Structures are given as C-alpha cells and as structure tokens.
C-alpha cells in the first residue's frame, strides 16, 4: 500500500468537504455547543452560590463524577462527528459519478479506503480537540475559584483525549466508510453510521448511574477494546469493499 496515495485522496476530500456547508456546521456547531454550553450549566449551578468549607468535599466529589461524564461526551462527539463525512465518502463518489474514473486509476482498495478514513478522521479529531480545549479552559475559569485549584487537565481527560478519542474517531470513521460502501444512498449511510454512537451512549449512561467509573484504568480498558475493533473493522472494510458491486448494482 502506498500511503502517499491515501493522502492524495484524503487531501482531495478535504477540499471537497470544505465546500459542503453541512459538514462545516456539524464540525463547528456541535463541539461549540458542548464546550460552551456545559461550562455555562456549571456556572449557573455553582457560579454564584456561596459554598461553605464543610460542603467542599461533597461538592468536589460530585463535580468529579460530573466532569468525568462531561469529558466522556467528547468521546461520544468523536463517534458522532466523522459520520457526516465518512458516510458520504464512498456513496458521495458514486452519486457524483466520480467513482468509476477513481477506480480506473492504479489505486488499491486499501489506499482508497485509508484515504477516506484519513479524510474523515483528521477534521473530526481536530474539532473534538478544539472543543475540548475550549471546554477545559471555560470549566477551569468557572470552577477554579470555588475549588481552589484548576481541575483540568487531569489524567482522566488526558487518557480520553489522547487515546480514547482518536481510537473512537477511527472506529466511527471506519464504520461510516464501510456503511458508505454498502448502501446506495447518502442519508441511509448517515443513519446506519449513527448506530456507532449507541454503545458509546450506553457507556455514558452507565457512568451517569455510577455503574461504570471513568477512571484512567477503565478508560484504558475501553480504549483497548476499541483498538481491537478498529483493527477488525479495517480488515472488514477491505474485505467488503466490492468495486464491481458498487459500479454495477448501484444506480
């Protein structure tokens, strides 16, 4: 596999997606809503309320769970954001009739699929990181005076952002690209692609009901599972990418 060819395809997709408004909106608006909205909620909750020193341990413990759950929202975001790009990746080429000339080039299935994965991965993970930085800065601004220390960054969010988020973005991207290569309609691809968010939402709910604690160790276990699924999905995407079927059966 020639990695530079995958990069050529990814760069072309970046240029194409830059002109698609819905992609820009989903990459900018959703992360901003989370990164600004959640600190506002916390500010409304504790910002103006006087806290007695005796209440502080309980508040810190409560905030710890809330902040970890909030941080995990960025993992969900990493699962959600690549869907709009990834789902369009193959089906979009087919709809715009560009797939046939692309497949006629001396480019392998692996190079095409990797290019599509990169094209969905980089903008999505960048948007998550940008949102996370804004979120942490605003949260610290809202809570540091009350807590007496700066909550972010910490080990939990470090594992989430440096390990779990990239792996989840890859997972979602691969799933979306596979879906995109199996359906003939962009909307159907997005709807199927969105299924990837469900297990992540289940983990989020589990943290909310204190069934799972988002410690760095648990997050590493979750990340390891996602890594294995990522590897399996990439093999699956190559095995299920059938040029001929896409060219002859899709209308």
């Amino acid at each position: 596999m020639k990695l530079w060819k995958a990069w050529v395809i990814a760069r072309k997709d970046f240029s194409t997606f830059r002109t698609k408004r819905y992609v820009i909106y989903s990459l900018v608006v959703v992360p901003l809503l989370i990164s600004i909205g959640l600190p506002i909620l916390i500010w409304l909750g504790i910002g103006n309320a006087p806290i007695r020193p005796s209440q502080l341990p309980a508040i810190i413990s409560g905030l710890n769970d809330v902040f970890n759950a909030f941080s995990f929202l960025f993992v969900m975001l990493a699962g959600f954001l690549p869907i709009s790009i990834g789902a369009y990746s193959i089906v979009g080429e087919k709809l715009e009739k560009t797939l046939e000339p692309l497949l006629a080039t001396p480019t392998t299935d692996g190079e095409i699929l990797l290019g599509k994965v990169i094209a969905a991965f980089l903008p999505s993970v960048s948007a998550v990181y940008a949102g996370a930085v804004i979120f942490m800065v605003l949260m610290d601004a809202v809570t540091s005076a009350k807590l007496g220390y700066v909550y972010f960054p910490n080990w939990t969010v470090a594992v989430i952002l440096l390990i779990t988020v990239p792996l989840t973005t890859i997972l979602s991207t691969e799933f979306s690209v596979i879906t995109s290569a199996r359906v003939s309609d962009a909307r159907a691809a997005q709807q199927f692609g969105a299924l990837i968010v469900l297990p992540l939402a289940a983990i989020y709910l589990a943290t909310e009901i204190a069934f799972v604690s988002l410690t760095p160790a648990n997050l590493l276990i979750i990340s390891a599972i996602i890594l294995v699924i990522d590897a399996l999905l990439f093999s699956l995407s190559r095995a299920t990418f059938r040029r001929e079927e896409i060219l002859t059966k899709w209308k």
Partner: protein
Amino acid sequence: MIETSNLTRKFGDVTAVEDLTLHVGEGEVFGFLGPNGAGKTTTIRMLACLISKTSGEARIADYEIGNSADCQKIRKIIGLVPDNVGLYEDLSAYRNLDFYGRLYECSDAQRREQIEYFLKMLGLWDVRDRPVRTFSKGMKQKLAIVRALIHDPQILFLDEPTANLDPEFQKTVRDFILELKREKRTIFLNTHNLDEAQRICDRIGILNTKLVAEGTPEQLMESLEGRKTQVQLQQVTPAVTGAVGRLGLRYVVSSGNRLVIDVSDPEKENPGIMEAIVAAGGHIQFITEKHATLEEVYLKLVRDEQ
C-alpha cells in the same frame, strides 16, 4: 494491443457480453457500435479491469485481464473516459487533473506540463482555476478526456464521448479524437454516432451482446449488398440494359436514368461496362461507386440479430 477471446460476462441469468473475440492493433482506432444494453460499456469496464469477466480471455498489451497484479499494470497504461464525465464539481479544472495525475503517479513536472499542454490545446487554460460546476457540458467532456490522457496512456477507452453534446461541441471533441489518432494512440471508442464512427474509426465492431460484424467501415458497407457501380445516363435504353445484361451482370434501373450494377471487382469490370454502354449508344453522364450507408448496415445487422 487489445485481444479478447470468447470474452463473456453474465449478470445473474442475463448475458451482457457473449463470446466476444476481437483484436485491436497498436495505433488503431476501433469503434464499437451497438444499441443500448448491447454490452458496450460492460466490455470497456472488463477491459479497464473495473469488473471481472465470467469466462474467456482478454489481454491488454501483455497483461491479462482478471489477474489482479496485471490489472494494476493495465490501469497504468490505459485512460478511461466513462459515459458520465465524473468530475469533482467543487474543485477547479486544474485541481481535478492534478488529483488524477498524482494517482497515476506522474511526476510534478509531468503533471504541470501535461495539464498546461492539454488545457491550452482545448481552450480551457484560462478557466483552469474555475470550479468545474461552472463549466458547460462540452467543457466538462473535454476535461474528462484530458483526465484520461494525463498520464500519457498507450490505450484510450472512450465511452460515448460525444453523447449529449451539441453539434459544435461534438465536432470539437471529434477533432480532438482525430488529433489523438494522428498521435498514433490506440483508441477503443464506444459510440451510437454512426457518422462519428465512420469518420474516426479504422475498424468497427457491431455488438449486440455478441459481435455481429467487424471490419473497416468500407468492408461493413460492402458487406450488406456487395459492391455496386452506379452509372447515370442521359437515358437508359433497352439497348443499354441489353448490353449490360450480356456481360452477365445483375442490374436495376433507378430514377429513370440510372443503372445500378452489381460488381465484384469494379476496378476490373468497370472499363468493360463503360465500353458496352457506349457501344450500345448510351451517353454516360456520371459513374460512381454505390454502397449501403453504415446506418443501413448497422440497422440491418442489429435487427437481424434481434
């Protein structure tokens, strides 16, 4: 350059191409005629390694269709213009070509030179930075042909390159194909346009799932009714028809003053015919070779097959 032997492709129970055997030589322009659904696009897709064959053999240069390693090599030496132009509408003309140039592994210098050369040749250089969505159909078609040429391929597959274009753009594209023909490129041209096929192609194949006929345009036109000599006289008299009849040739009288005579070797037979007519008192005004048009041949062969 292109060889197929009993090449067959089935989609389920439907046979799209059956037992196709043909040879296209280097530098030859081969035209593929046939009705919709005759298997022309399927043939090009098989030869371009886009879809597999069901049975039979096919080779491009020395590479075998169906062998995955060879298919990668085949893709490097062919250029394809599909029936849909398939350009990235939001990208500029230059960016579209540069993208494909990179995938075809052209060097930076080669890409720059090829893009400039072809865009200037086709009058698209000044609009190279405009998004393709702002282009007319004809401009897009020309751009799609340039895309197929960006890596200087030995063989060019063109699938209906002038379909849906107005006559002016058809001529521009046709002239460009003729220019490529002068450059001695091997061209495999799918077309519905009989006039285009006749003007451009060295040889023509008529496909209707099976290869119904194959030959030069002249051979195909002669194949329908044989060769004929048409003699226009001041008047066709019984003496003249008697003289022609005595030569043992079949003839018909057409439009009152024309004799259409079946000949097998006009270069040898025509002088004798002229002498006989003149000796019978006929006054010859014109003598021409008459044959069926390619359209007549095409329609007869396709209808017979159906």
